[in-house]
Every structure is written in structure tokens, then in C-alpha cells.
């Protein structure tokens, strides 16, 4: 049975001016002693600009400070507050309640990530796969030895990868990916998009070694171009595009 609480019935430290309220359903689960997750429900007032993260923090402030949520920058830069909001992976700080067009907002931990508690998930695997594809420039002369030399790059060359450099490692793409839903070993759209980011960088010389890393049974071939990763990306990275370009190299469509 879900617990329902309302801020209007509480003594609040800040005046609540909003006339609108939304039912916020928060998934609660502690793997250490819970068998399954359950929802707690809260009536939260909101304004046109109120984000889901702000609503969750209101709940923490007024009702239940034990709700576990990870957040930091509150401006879609740190990639910490990814969660399932009304069934779709989104950043809580980048999702306004008014844009959801619903009287009920359900927040759950991201799919395809182990749960630490409530809305907080483990990112170890995402960081492992990210590291696996060598997310750095590979070349023999990486260290600059004199002031006279630098790795020049034209604006056109920059355009080839700058979109993919916007990745904030929030994990929404991995959460939306249908392959990640069933394949625990799949490298995932985040890492594959970052592989393309460096392959497309004119300063980088590590294309062959990266292609070798992703050219395996649980690598790039498990992507079926469903495109869900690109649809949920909050930074416009479009991992599906990068992955197809990357596969184009392996299939001989690109050189």
C-alpha cells in the first residue's frame, strides 16, 4: 500500500504559492533488506518551472529525508540525476513537471543499472566500458616537448566529433537501449559513441585499436539501430549516429 502525504498539511519553512499540485510517486527499494520495490506517494505543489528533481528535494525536505537520490549541478551538466520519469529515462533536473503533462509523476531508478538504494544506481559498469574503449587521444607524440608545436585542428575537423564530446555520462542511453535490457555484457551505446568520438578526432591515431576492442560478440554488432539511445540523450549526442558511423568503418562503407 502506497503512503500518501501532502505538503499542504504540513508546516513548511517556505511559503507555498502554487495552486497546482502533482502526485509524485517515488520508488523505494533497499537491496540490503527489501525483497521488492514499493512506491511512496506525495502531493507536491509545483510551478511552471519546477523540475522533477526540485519536487523530489521538496519531499526530502518536508516528508522523508531518507529518499536516496543522486544529484549535483542541477543544470544537466554533471549527469548525476538520471532516472526513469513516467517510464522514460530522463535527467530529473532537466525535466519540468509542467512538460510531462500528467497529474501523476512516477520516478524509478534507471533500468539496466544495479540499484544502490531508491533512485540511486551504480555507475561502475558504465565507467568500466567507457574506459575500455580508451577515451583519450592515442598517438606516439602525445606529450608536447616544445612550445612551438601543437595539435592543430580545423573547425571542419572539430565538427566531426564535437557533438559526441558533449556526453556527460548520465547513462540514460544505456538505460533506454533494448540490447542492454537483456545483454549484461553488451558494451553499450555510451561507450560506443565515445569510441566514435575519438575515432573521428583528426588528432587521434588509435582507430584500429578501438575498432578491435568493439569488434566482438558483445560489442558493436549487438546494436540493432533502434535509436532509443539518441531519443533520450539530454545533450544531443546522438549515440545511434556515432555507432552506425563506427560500424561503417568495420563494414568497409567508410575509411
Amino acid at each position: 500500500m502506497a503512503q500518501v502525504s501532502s505538503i499542504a498539511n504540513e508546516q513548511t519553512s517556505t511559503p507555498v504559492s502554487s495552486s497546482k499540485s502533482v502526485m509524485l510517486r517515488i520508488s523505494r527499494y533497499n537491496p540490503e533488506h527489501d525483497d521488492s520495490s514499493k512506491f511512496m506517494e506525495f502531493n507536491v505543489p509545483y510551478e511552471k518551472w519546477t523540475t522533477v528533481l526540485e519536487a523530489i528535494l521538496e519531499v526530502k525536505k518536508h516528508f522523508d529525508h531518507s529518499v536516496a537520490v543522486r544529484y549535483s549541478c542541477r543544470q544537466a551538466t554533471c549527469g548525476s540525476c538520471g532516472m526513469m520519469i513516467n517510464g522514460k529515462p530522463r535527467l530529473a533536473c532537466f525535466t519540468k513537471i509542467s512538460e510531462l503533462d500528467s497529474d501523476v509523476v512516477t520516478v524509478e531508478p534507471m533500468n539496466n543499472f544495479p540499484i544502490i538504494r531508491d533512485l540511486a544506481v551504480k555507475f561502475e559498469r558504465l565507467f568500466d566500458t567507457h574506459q575500455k574503449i580508451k577515451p583519450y587521444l592515442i598517438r606516439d607524440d602525445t606529450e608536447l616537448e616544445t612550445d612551438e608545436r601543437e595539435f592543430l585542428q580545423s573547425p571542419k575537423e572539430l565538427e566531426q566529433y564535437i557533438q559526441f564530446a558533449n556526453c556527460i555520462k548520465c547513462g540514460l542511453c544505456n538505460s533506454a537501449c533494448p540490447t542492454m535490457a537483456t545483454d549484461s555484457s553488451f558494451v553499450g551505446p555510451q561507450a560506443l559513441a565515445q569510441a566514435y568520438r575519438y575515432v573521428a578526432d583528426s588528432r587521434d591515431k588509435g582507430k584500429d585499436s578501438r575498432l578491435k576492442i568493439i569488434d566482438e560478440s558483445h560489442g558493436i554488432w549487438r546494436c540493432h539501430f533502434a535509436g532509443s539511445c539518441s531519443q533520450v540523450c539530454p545533450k544531443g549526442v546522438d549515440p545511434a549516429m556515432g555507432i552506425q558511423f563506427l560500424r561503417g568503418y568495420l563494414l568497409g562503407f567508410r575509411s
Partner: protein
Amino acid sequence: MTKDEHKAGIGGMANPTRYGIERVAYWLMRLTGLGLLAYFVAHIYETSNILRGQVGWDEFLALTQTTEGHIFLALVIAMCVFHTVNGIRVMLGHGGIGVGTPARPDYPYDPASQNYRHKIGIYSAILLAAIATMYGLAVMFGE
């Protein structure tokens, strides 16, 4: 896969409702692929009836001349046409063809890889499958 991994599972993979027509196409592609694989196995079994001679062959073939048999074959036509047309779209996409060009993204960040060319390809696959199925039904039931 352990419970700890919190995977969306087959239900999450197969749910076509949350991510637009591209996810529907992904789901249909898998479904028709499995359907055609099942048909392929059934087809081998069907043709193996030739070993039972003319009578055995005619007996089994008579199953396809029933209403249920016609509907089954119409489904096969639908699966075959959708899988072929959408497969061509996916294969081109897999080569990086028609997935857009990298550029600095602007809000609201509409992904270039999910462009109108691919949407037209998906809707064309569905439309052609429907037309072929209707034609097949007209031929089979019009006998």
C-alpha cells in the same frame, strides 16, 4: 543475469510504446525475424512430406488451402515484406548511410539519425507489407 543488475528484461526490450516509430520498427523487425525463422523450419518440415509420396504431399498441401492456412500464409507475406524492406533500411543505416552528419547540436536536440528518411523507410515497410498482404488475401480467397 542476476536480479541485482536491475535489467529491463525482455519486457523492457519488447515494449514498443515509449521511443517512437523507430522502436516499433525494431520490435517488428525482431518479431518478423523470429516468425520467418519459425516459418523456415515449418517449411522444411512441409517439403519433407514429399518423402511420403504424392498422397502425403497432397494431404499436407491441403492444409494451406483452408481459411486458417490462407491467413497463416498472409501473415508470412506480411512478415517477409516488412522484414525485407525494413532490413534494407537498417542495413544502409548500419553502414552509416542516411543517418545524418555530425554537427553541433541545438536544443531541443532532435537526433539527426532519426531523420525523415528513416521514418519514411519504416512507414513504407509497413505500408508495403499491408498492400502485399491484402493482395495475397485477395488472390487466396478469390480462388
